[in-house]
């Protein structure tokens, strides 16, 4: 259960309404994670600016960013983000087999991943676990494939999804009914380690079937 109220579009102030309109234009609906930020419109306005920038082609492709989002939010065990981005990445062409191989280090030997993708997923794992211990060889491979502007976008995407996943999870933001029936891919390959996430997953599945 969400711990703060969702601010529905009809009750949103003009600043929040503008954010909601942008969300609908981009994502066809106002997700619960947007609605909860209606409790502080000035924060909603600036925070979502980052995600509107990320969720499109930039100096790296949206497709590549979706791989980073899946990897970082799976490692952070965010059921809400993983579920949404299994669907978004699939729309962009990431196959189920490719999604499955992102779990653990399967992607390193998977035929579905390019060397450039493997490089940024390795970097992503280190950023999530401990950025102080990123080995030189990980940076060397990343820099072989990407320039400075792209590296900034890669790191910013990982950081932003660490932010939004913990932001939503801490407030108990729920998956929208539209996801009922969605069959989890990543959590099917590797169940959550957190008992709390397992409870959320069980609850979601019981309402999905």
């Amino acid at each position, binding site marked *: 259960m969400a*711990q703060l*109220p969702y601010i529905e579009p009809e009750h949103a102030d003009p600043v929040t309404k503008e954010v909601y309109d942008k969300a609908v234009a981009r994502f066809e609906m106002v997700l619960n994670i947007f609605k909860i930020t209606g409790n502080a419109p000035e924060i909603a306005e600036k925070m979502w600016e980052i995600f509107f920038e990320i969720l499109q082609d930039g100096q790296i492709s949206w497709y590549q960013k979706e791989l980073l989002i899946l990897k970082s939010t799976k490692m952070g065990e965010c059921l809400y983000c993983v579920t949404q981005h299994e669907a978004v990445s699939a729309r962009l062409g990431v196959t189920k087999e490719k999604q499955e191989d992102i779990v653990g280090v399967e992607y390193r030997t998977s035929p579905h991943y390019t060397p450039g993708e493997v490089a940024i997923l390795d970097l992503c794992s280190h950023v999530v676990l401990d950025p102080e211990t990123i080995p030189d060889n990980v940076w060397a491979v990343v820099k072989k494939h990407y320039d400075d502007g792209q590296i900034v976008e890669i790191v910013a995407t990982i*950081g932003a999804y660490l932010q939004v996943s913990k932001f939503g999870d801490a407030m108990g933001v729920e998956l929208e009914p539209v996801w009922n029936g969605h069959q989890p891919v990543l959590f099917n390959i590797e169940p959550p380690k957190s008992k709390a996430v397992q409870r959320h997953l069980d609850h979601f599945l019981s309402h999905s079937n």
Partner: protein
Amino acid sequence: MAATKILTKENVDAEVKEVFNRAEIHFGSVPNLVRVLASNPSMCTSITNFLIQSMGPGRIEWGFKELIILKTLRVMKSFYGYGAHEKMALDLGVSTDKIGDISNSIWKSSAHFSPAEKVVFELVEQIGLDANDVSDDLWERLRANWDNGQLLEINAVITTFIMIGRVGDTLGVSDPILFTKALN
């Protein structure tokens, strides 16, 4: 050494120069984090705008916000900007006792914090441990002390500085001299 180039006003385009100017007005100088992000103008702009919004007066007192940031950086074992936020807290009138007492579990028995402040530090620690497992009981105590807008802001500050700490540490930047101007 930073992982990517640290740019200056002389080698950025007009859009990023404008971001640098806003950052300089707000922070006293252009943070090295902003200069590193400048290789990607759209990310630099959106993240800097959010950072400026996050660091200033809001629904909760700025001084307390700085304590939340310090606690978050400690919980996440993040080094980026720690010294600058200590200085910021001091400049805003936060006592050295409070800054010291946010360490490990000392805050729990500290006489320098109110129950309202302590419940927020409990939230910071829980988010660091498992954001999916913030109990209803903790939320009840949070709601007893703070309104919905304040709680949204508190949660945003915590998670934003998880992001900023991770990005800063990953790109290998430090910013020990922020806020060199007197506060208004």
